[in-house]
Structure formats: structure tokens, C-alpha cells
């Protein structure tokens, strides 16, 4: 008899709780934003944060509420933007697809080590100690902070120099933000010439520090027919808006710091 009371009481409590929850979920239901749901379905779901939001979910909410532009998803590129424009019923414009590129070619054969660094194996820590273990204080340190940050595993370090596989890269820009030396930049997927140095020292000094340094000789600047390449602070800088992809500058560069690249096929110079 006792067991029956126990059963009944527990069943009654359970039933009450169940009814309470059912009623509550019916009356207190919060209508979910349908648009946000649809937008979220279009997004890749990598939660990389390249859009500037905490993840795909919060970006979808922001887009649905009209607080954010629909073209901010960099990994998704034109595909996702197109789908979003269908969902939202508005035109969404995107630039060309981008990839991250390491503007440094100071591997261990070219860049002299000034100290033997044996501290915490992180670029950030190494950079704080006299600007890093290499004599060039502008270049890649090669301890792989970017490798750890990359959500898709596109970066590898070889001979103390980070290399990004443009075919895997989703251009989320996390490595750009994390690199203490700022040698990584986002460039268009269709660029033909890339600068592989970040050293802003004068020619002779730069050369002394790294065999693969840009000398700032301005040969490229004189050769360029389209006014697209300029030497700023002893370092060649390409204005890709003006560049006509002729590749003449790369041919005349005496140190070979201007490289012909083909990002789509994984050629990074």
C-alpha cells in the first residue's frame, strides 16, 4: 500500500511539473526571429569572428535586425552574400575574395639570429624581448602564434618563417590580428605581384640584418607604368586598386622581393 502512495505522489508531482512546463512554454513562448534563423542557415558556421561579431549566431541576429551589413562574412565570400541577398531581399555587394599573405621571406638562411631565444615559445613573448630573436626586427619570428590562431589549419612554419596556404585560407584575419610583428596582411585572391618583405630600414642596414630584405631602391616605382607601386619608408608598397597585373616590377626587382604569385593555385612565391 505504501509503495502505491509513493508512486502516486511522485507521479502527481511529475505530472504537475510537466503540465506547468507545457503551459509555461506555450504562454511564455518568445517568437524566434525567423529571418535570423534563415540568415544563420546561410552562414558557414565556422564561428571565426571575421565579421566582428562573437560568432555566426550573433552575426545572423545583427543582420536580421539590420544592425550589420550582409557582406561581412569573409569566409563565405560572394556565395554567402548572394544567398543572404536572396533571404533579405536586398542587393549585397562584395569585393573580390581575399587571402592572408605573409609579407616576409626572412627564413633562417637569410635572417641572422641575434640571440638564442629559449623562453616561452610564443611570438608575442619573444617579440617583447628586444624585438625578437632575429636581427631584423620587422620580420616573422616563426614561433607560430598564427598557426595556433588559424581556425582552418592553413598556416605552417618552415625554417622559422610562417607560410599560409592560400587554397585553405578563409581570410578570417585572425592571424593578421595576432601577429605581433604585423607581417601578415589580407590581399585579393587575384593579385599577381606580392611584396615579401616588411623591413622599413634603409637599404644597407636592412640588407645587413636580412639577406632577403627590400632595399627601397625604387626601381619598381620607376618601372611601373600605372603608378601603382610606391616606396614608402624604404619599403615597396603596391596599391592593388591601380595595379594592372603586368608583373614588370617583379622582373626588375634586384633582390627578388617582389614575387609573382597565383593565390588560386597556391603559388605564394
Amino acid at each position, binding site marked *: 500500500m505504501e509503495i502505491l*502512495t509513493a508512486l502516486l505522489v511522485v507521479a502527481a*508531482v511529475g505530472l504537475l511539473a510537466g503540465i506547468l512546463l507545457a503551459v509555461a512554454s506555450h504562454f511564455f513562448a518568445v517568437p524566434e526571429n525567423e529571418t535570423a534563423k534563415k540568415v544563420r542557415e546561410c552562414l558557414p558556421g565556422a564561428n571565426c569572428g571575421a565579421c566582428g561579431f562573437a560568432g555566426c549566431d550573433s552575426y545572423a541576429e545583427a543582420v536580421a535586425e539590420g544592425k550589420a551589413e550582409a557582406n561581412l562574412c569573409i569566409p563565405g565570400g560572394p556565395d554567402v552574400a548572394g544567398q543572404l541577398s536572396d533571404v533579405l531581399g536586398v542587393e549585397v555587394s562584395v569585393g573580390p575574395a581575399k587571402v592572408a599573405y605573409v609579407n616576409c621571406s626572412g627564413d633562417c638562411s637569410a635572417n641572422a639570429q641575434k640571440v638564442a631565444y629559449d623562453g616561452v615559445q610564443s611570438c608575442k613573448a619573444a617579440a617583447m624581448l628586444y624585438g625578437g630573436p632575429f636581427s631584423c626586427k620587422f620580420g616573422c619570428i616563426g614561433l607560430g602564434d598564427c598557426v595556433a590562431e588559424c581556425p582552418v589549419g592553413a598556416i605552417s612554419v618552415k625554417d622559422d618563417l610562417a607560410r599560409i596556404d592560400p587554397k585553405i585560407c578563409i581570410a578570417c584575419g585572425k592571424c593578421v590580428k595576432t601577429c605581433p610583428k604585423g607581417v601578415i596582411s589580407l590581399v585579393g585572391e587575384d593579385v599577381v605581384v606580392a611584396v615579401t618583405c616588411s623591413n622599413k630600414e634603409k637599404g644597407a642596414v636592412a640588407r645587413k640584418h636580412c639577406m632577403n630584405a627590400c632595399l627601397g631602391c625604387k626601381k619598381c616605382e620607376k618601372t611601373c607604368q600605372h603608378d601603382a607601386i610606391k616606396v614608402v619608408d624604404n619599403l615597396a608598397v603596391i596599391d592593388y586598386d591601380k595595379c594592372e597585373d603586368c608583373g614588370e616590377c617583379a622582373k626588375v626587382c634586384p633582390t627578388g622581393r617582389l614575387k609573382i604569385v597565383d593565390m588560386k593555385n597556391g603559388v605564394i612565391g
Partner: protein
Amino acid sequence: MNMEMVKTLIIIIMSSVLVDNYVLSRFLGICPFLGVSKKVNQSVGMGVSVIFVMLVATAVTWPIQAYILNPLKMGYMQTIVFILVIAALVQFIEIFLKKFIPALHKSLGVYLPLITTNCAVLGVTINNITDYGVEDSNAFLFSMVSSLGCGLGFLFAMVLFSGMRSRIEESDVPESFKGLPVTLVAASFISMAFFGFAGIVENLLA
């Protein structure tokens, strides 16, 4: 309320925060203690949610014990009924907050499902009944204050430990101790330190 009463309440709070800390002395609620203590702000969020749920759970389970289980002589069903009630209650609170206080839901929301059947919450409700009973006229008040103290103790332990963990993250830990092992060792140190509080609370206001 007389002085004697206030004294008792203060002693209840102090002893449940320091001496009988649920995490560090009774080893209940270890799961969120290790899981959500990586960052200070997360551990604060979790701690506040636990205080909230402990208070509400005690407020609901005490009457159930007093007016349903005890009259029917069904004290032995305590655990099962309490789990059932607490789980349903937390779910209800989540739905309720989502509708009426979205801001609070956003800050507590992620932690509420984690606490649904947390052993610390269940432990508090059951211990309150064992410690203070249901007959005494002050039992309900004592139970509520004790839940508040236990929640504060949980918050205290979480914040303390998350600070410690952020120091561990930055230090050079031997390869074989990296991750959970060093965390558990650190937890045991804090726990041992808390045993030093045993015996001081009784004489706190003497």
C-alpha cells in the same frame, strides 16, 4: 528579530561560506567548479546563477518536505522528488526569464541548464532539511539563509579558483601536468587551505 537571532544567521552564513564550503569542504558541485572556472567573469555568472537557483530550490523543496512528504511518511522519496522538482523548476525559470526579463536571461541563460540537476543544489536542499528539520518555527528562515550562504560560498570558491587558474595558464607547467592534472592539484590546495577555517566560526561573535 532579536540580537541572538541575527547572530545565529550570521554564523550560518559564515560557516556555510568558509567552513562547510560546498565545493571545497563537502566536494559537491565539482563539475561546474572545474568546468566554468576558466575565466573570472564566467565564474561570477555561474556563481550568481547558483545562488539564485539554490534560493528558489530551497523555497520550493522545503514546503514539499514539510507538507507533502512528511505527512505521508515518505521521507525516503526525498531525493527523487527533489530532483524532479528542481529540474522542472529551473526549466520553468528559464522560460519565465526569457519572456519577461531577457537581459537577465542573457546573462544567466547559458548557466541555468548546467545547474538543472547540479549536486550542490540538491545537496543544499537535502542538507537544509537534515540540519534544520521542518518542525522548528525558524526552520524555513534558517534553510533560506543557509542556501544563500552556500551559494555565496560557491561563488567565492569559483572566483578564487578562476583567479588561480588564470595564473596557472600563464605559468610554465610540466608537460605531464598540463591541463586537468594541475587544475585538480590546485583545487586540492585551495581545499586544504579551507580546512584551516574549521573551528573559527563558532567563536566568531563570542
